[in-house]
């Protein structure tokens, strides 16, 4: 996958589409037609408030992470896989229980628009 085009901040949805303390899923497509699913979590009580990570659960092997419960483990914001309950850090993508990790994306809210850098 070296055919990456220029990365830039792209709008995904309205901030009103976010669900507090929970996740939604978005489909990223680049100009070459490659698709990626990302999970976007809105945690208004945490430091960063909004996070984006890959939606694919590398352990359960299914696109389900946005349906996991979010929270924190020792102050690290995490999502728990809805399939087998492993925790993934929303900051680094690292799995806290196994040698696995998921992708992390830069995300921000700009003029009530949710934007991801890709």
């Amino acid at each position, binding site marked *: 996958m070296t055919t990456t085009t220029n990365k830039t901040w792209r709008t995904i949805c309205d901030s009103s589409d976010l*669900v507090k303390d929970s996740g939604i899923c978005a489909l990223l497509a680049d100009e070459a037609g490659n*698709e990626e699913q990302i999970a976007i979590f809105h945690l208004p009580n945490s430091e960063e408030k909004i996070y984006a990570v890959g939606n694919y659960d590398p352990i359960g092997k*299914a*696109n389900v992470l946005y349906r996991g419960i*979010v929270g924190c483990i020792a102050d690290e914001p995490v999502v728990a896989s809805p399939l087998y309950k492993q925790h993934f850090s929303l900051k680094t993508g690292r799995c806290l229980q196994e040698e696995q990790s998921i992708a992390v994306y830069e995300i921000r809210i700009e003029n009530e628009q949710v934007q991801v850098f890709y």
Partner: protein
Amino acid sequence: MNTDKQLLSKAKIVVVGNGMVGHHFVEEMAKNSDYQITVLSAESRLAYDRVHLSEYFGGKTAEDLAMTTPEHYDELGVTFKTNAKVTKIDKVAKCVTTESGATYHYDKLILATGSYPFVPPIPGKDQDHCLVYRTIDDLEDIANSAKVSKVGVVIGGGLLGLEAANAIKQLGLQTHVVEFAPQLMGVQIDGGGGRLLKSKIEELGVQVHTSKATNVIEKGDKCRYKLCFNDGSELETDLILFSAGIRPYDNLAREFDLAIGERGGIVVNNQCQTSDVDIYAIGECALWNNFIFGLVAPGYAMAKVAAKHIGGVTGTNGELAEFTGADMSTKLKLMGVEVGSIGDAHGKTEGSLTYTYENQPEGVYKKIVVSADKKTLLGAVLIGDTSDYDTLLQYMLNAIELPEAPEGLILPMAADKPTLGVDALPDTATICSCHNVTKGDIIAAIDCGAVDVGQVKSGTKAGSGCGGCAALVKSVADNEFEKRGLVVKKDICEHFAYSRRELFDIVSVEKIKTFDELLSSHGRGLGCEICKPVAASVLASVWNDYILKKPHLSLQDTNDTYLGNMQKDGTYSVVPRIAGGEITPDKLIVLGQVAKKYNLYTKITGGARVDLFGARVEQLPPIWKELIDAGFETGHAYGKSLRTVKSCVGSTWCRYGVQDSMSMAIDLEHRYKGLRAPHKIKFGVSGCTRECAEAQGKDIGIIATENGWNLFVGGNGGMKPRHGDLFATDLDDETLVKYIDRILMFYVQTGDRLQRTSVWLENLAGGLAYLQDVIMKDSLGITDALEEQMATIVGSYQCEWKTTLADPEALKRFQPFVNSDKGDSNIQFVTEREQIRPARDEEKIAVTIIDATEKEAVAEDA
């Protein structure tokens, strides 16, 4: 080879009898691998728990009572033969011979032959339906006889006789107890206690006839038999159960010349050796110091001593292990009447003094026997209330000096009732007499790392015998934990320092309605996948709100959020409710049509409903719309809540049914659907005792009887199967529902996270009896509140799918992508046996999935 030689040279131990004590010996001896153990058992099965024999009539099976299995003995390397009664001992050749003629050589022989019920020589005693109460086979005979009998008589009003009377009463017979002496339980309790016990037992519908000797058993006029007493009176009965004491099985010793006592019993020394040093006798066949111990704990102690002696295990100073007698105190519940007897209950000790308290209206009798100087407790009798038993027993066993006014120990309202804190007990105090566990042993277990009562119990075996000491074990352990500053941790997770039960109280008392409120007032951090669903379940139980209301939405497991069970590929199952498994042909057709239209995999489940698998999130709303339009509602297969009420057709169709189990099942399923609980709940309702609905394996099991319904609680299938405990018998419809309301609500309030009713019940301090008191006698004064809460929940039921479909906001959740109408291309199916199943990795058509490593590479490239 070396090992062969070792095998050949292993000393041979033969154990005759595989009762509780013989088995205990095997377990102790097998710890030492230098011996080859052979067990010869006259019964058709290996050792089982005779102490809890009566529970066989409460629904326990032979497997439940078993103390070991052939596999377990194989693992221990123990050889065994069942149906192998030993008939001959050759002390010179050192071998024994069984009935079938097989001969076994021994280096050491253990006689653990126990005892047999004594049947008085009354003419007519050998007929059919004249039975005894000792083995599982006996109980099977009793059950068979009871089926063709209306009246039953137990001859003998001792401890076992009363237990047997309770059993035949439970089998539905009109029950009598005939006792030769002027009082019941003459061995353990005094005249005053006996009188009270008699009146209590008669209140329960068992007739007691004291001071009656039976002369002859004749053919009856109305019943099968007639007992003719020496005073000229008669009693008609169909079944006769002899429980007139036990006699040691000492016939082998008699015939082959080992010393026996004047009135029977194989004489043993402090090492449990008989008059032949290579032959030991242990348990109820052994006579020590001219005494036979008719309880299991002394037998276990003998087994340990014999095993140590054979293995050459000595104390730190080389002293031999010794059996030095045992305490015969007992506490038990006879037909619901609490009875306790400690030490010298009859005050036979010279110069002893007694204090007595009797409360006739309440049915309580208590007596203590103290030494002449009023300093030590010698004995006690407790009827109707044994709450002082543990304290009194410890006073007696440890010779703790009595308080100034010893009567305070048994007077109910004594202002300064002396309580014996567990701290006051010496380390040598025996806490569990069945397994001879002292306070010191419990402390040692905690020293070795036990951090909760469960670990203390499994480490020391304390509480795993008769179970009477469970509460004391817990307080000794808790006291020790407390001393060490070990807080007994029940926190559900790092965000809340509370158990589920405590959170339940907080939510109801402080009227908390959202997770955020709960977190800010009693928690820390952001919460997690453990505390959030617990809070959701508690909030749902207390307030019964629609679970997908905005503030609760993020708390739910995905199954609750999407109102379906997530499968391994991220799709969901669709499970509509089919109450009691009853469904019209039209509805069945709708299920088929919907499954076909959405290409769903279809399976009939063990819970008598139809599961449809493979629905994508976006398909869930249209599928449910069609189902709800056809009259279905959600089956809550996704929730920790009532799943199914399994039922047979009962008296509506079945030839054997005695009640309409079908209507009952449907009513119950509709009553409790949607109730949120610590874990899922399953019911079963059978139309008669044939139990086709397997109700005893369910959380709540209901079995029809001629007179109503028997209620079982705490059954379970799955990983740890358990038969439910018989909770109450012959209930009418209304009482049945009332009790279930109370039990379920109590469980919802007090159960731990993910605790099924089976584990919950086992962990309730006080167990079944405690639950019965709470539910039927209202011992906590909460039953009204429990019923009220249940009524509110039943009254505010809503079908969550119906509510969801009517809410456009909620429906947004079912769109897979916030920014696209596409579906998830990673969900792929293949066909197998004409239906879909998730494609395996190698069967999938490539889709791009960017994992973290690739992503980093991409980032570097950029």
